[in-house]
């Protein structure tokens, strides 16, 4: 599974406006819901918050991968957002979070969501890839970086 295939380009946020965890989740949920039919911001937010309350999806090194399962969704969707200033996302290394990958999967995704999660987290462990995402000036550079990473595996 390629990340490029599930990434919703219209939902990508180059620079988030918010400076709080809940604010970023709201922005990302709203942007994704606006581009994916059948997805509602409020319901999505509720699912994401529930997952965060279990344990933050801030996996350290400036990366968070909020995710959740939604009934009524046909296929996996993902979006990306960035905060150059960094946000307190309660990450496991207690450092500010800059890069956000949001992953939303159908309720019965039969393990596909784990494969997608594993793939995204492996990508983001590559410092070069993180650097590309941080420095990208526009949407095209971000998409190119992700495509390149997708090609490696």
């Amino acid at each position, binding site marked *: 599974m390629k990340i490029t295939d599930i990434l919703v380009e219209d939902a990508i946020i180059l620079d988030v406006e918010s400076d709080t965890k809940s604010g970023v989740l709201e922005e990302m949920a709203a942007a994704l819901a606006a581009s994916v039919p059948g997805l509602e911001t409020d319901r999505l937010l509720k699912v994401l918050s529930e997952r965060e309350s279990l344990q933050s999806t801030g*996996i350290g090194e400036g990366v968070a991968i909020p995710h959740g399962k939604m009934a009524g969704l046909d296929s996996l969707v993902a979006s990306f957002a960035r905060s150059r200033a960094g946000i307190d996302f309660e990450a496991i290394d207690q450092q500010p979070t800059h890069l956000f990958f949001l992953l939303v999967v159908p309720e019965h995704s039969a393990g596909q969501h784990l494969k997608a999660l594993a793939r995204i987290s492996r990508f983001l462990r590559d410092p070069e890839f993180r650097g590309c995402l941080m420095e990208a000036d526009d949407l095209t550079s971000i998409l190119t970086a992700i495509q390149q990473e997708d090609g490696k595996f």
Partner: protein
Amino acid sequence: MELGDILIVGGGLVGQNLAERLSRDGYNVTLIERDPDKARDLSDTLDARIVQGDGTTTPVLREADIENVGLLVAATERDECNLVTGFLASHVFGTPHVVVRVRDPLHEDGFQKACLDQPVEGVCVNPDTASVDRIAALLEVPGAVDVMKFFGDGMLVAGFRIPTVSDFAGLRVSDMTLLFATTPTLAVAIQRGRLWIVPGGTEVIEAGDLVYFAIARDELHDVLSLVGAPPERQGRIMVDGASPIGLALAKRLEASDERVVMIEEDSVIAERAASELSHVLVIRGKGTDQALLEEEEIDKVSTFVALTDDHESNLVAGLLAKRLGAGRSIVLVDNPAMVSMVGDMGMDAIISPRLLTIGQMIQHIRGGGVRSGAALLGDKVEIVEVEAVEGCRLVSGPLMEIKLPQGVLVVALQRGDELVVPRGPDSVIVGDRVLIAVESHKSLELEKYTLA
């Protein structure tokens, strides 16, 4: 309770290996061996006090200072000798912990019952039962090289060789908590070349690693899919050898409706096996006979299990079965040199009754009164289940504050029927069952946390 000094009776492979491990851990170990030549050899090679004599007699036991040991392990080859020693320890000398190796299940029952009304703890360790349990667990988990069960049946620890295509290849260990947020499913030990580690969160899993995962039952399917192991082949299971282990395995498989075919060379033993089994076809022959394997459609067999008393033949039969197309080969070998070699020979899994026996004894030493045997991974890492007892350091505060040494990982808790993911702010409470991964050289240090 401090365990104190340890007395082992019987200097065979089990006693010797156990003495080696325990003295390396820092225990004071005394070993009784009847054979004078062997006793002399042992005193040259082992870092333990060796007493030459008959361990079923009180003078010899006294000479070995039985009155001052915390634990006695009776580990000779003979049930009867071990039982006599065990009875003397538990009923005459009042040794607090007594572990007896027996192969006949009827002997087990008697000893355990006899200890019930004594102020001591007496347990039996049965190599055959342990072997059958381990094979049955392996059959449940396709692709695994090793499988252990803990918390009754609630948690599995299974080792997999990570293929290049696996979703785990390149994954950081701490990211498994992202994937499995609600269950204690995680990597607990990694073997990379000659190196064994209990990984910290920042460790990255690499293709080619042998990784042991703790897996909550419900997550097994997902973990298998992430490992990328080839799907399980449907088909008959072929058991080579109607040895006590082979027969017990066939009976158990038959009871769970598996299709089983058994090979046995000896006609008398084959006939007896056939009479004890109702749905298993018993064929006279050898597992090393290529024509026979082909005739029995070995290429359609899901798993070939070689369990004869001739371990070298088991190895040959296992390799042959694999080459002729069996889905998976599990072989019984016990010789330490062979055990360490077999993994490199393309065998899927090995069963070593000796190591399983030692694992159960070690579990008893670490945890006391716990049902499952400790998993010993390549001599370097132990997975043990302990019960959190009143007054032990493990229950003295949140996990992040009790500062467990590096190389010790609290993997999972079982509280009543509930499986708990132990996170930093959580505390272990009295009565919890605790699954712990520990690098062997830290195990004595671990004892400071688990004993009151």
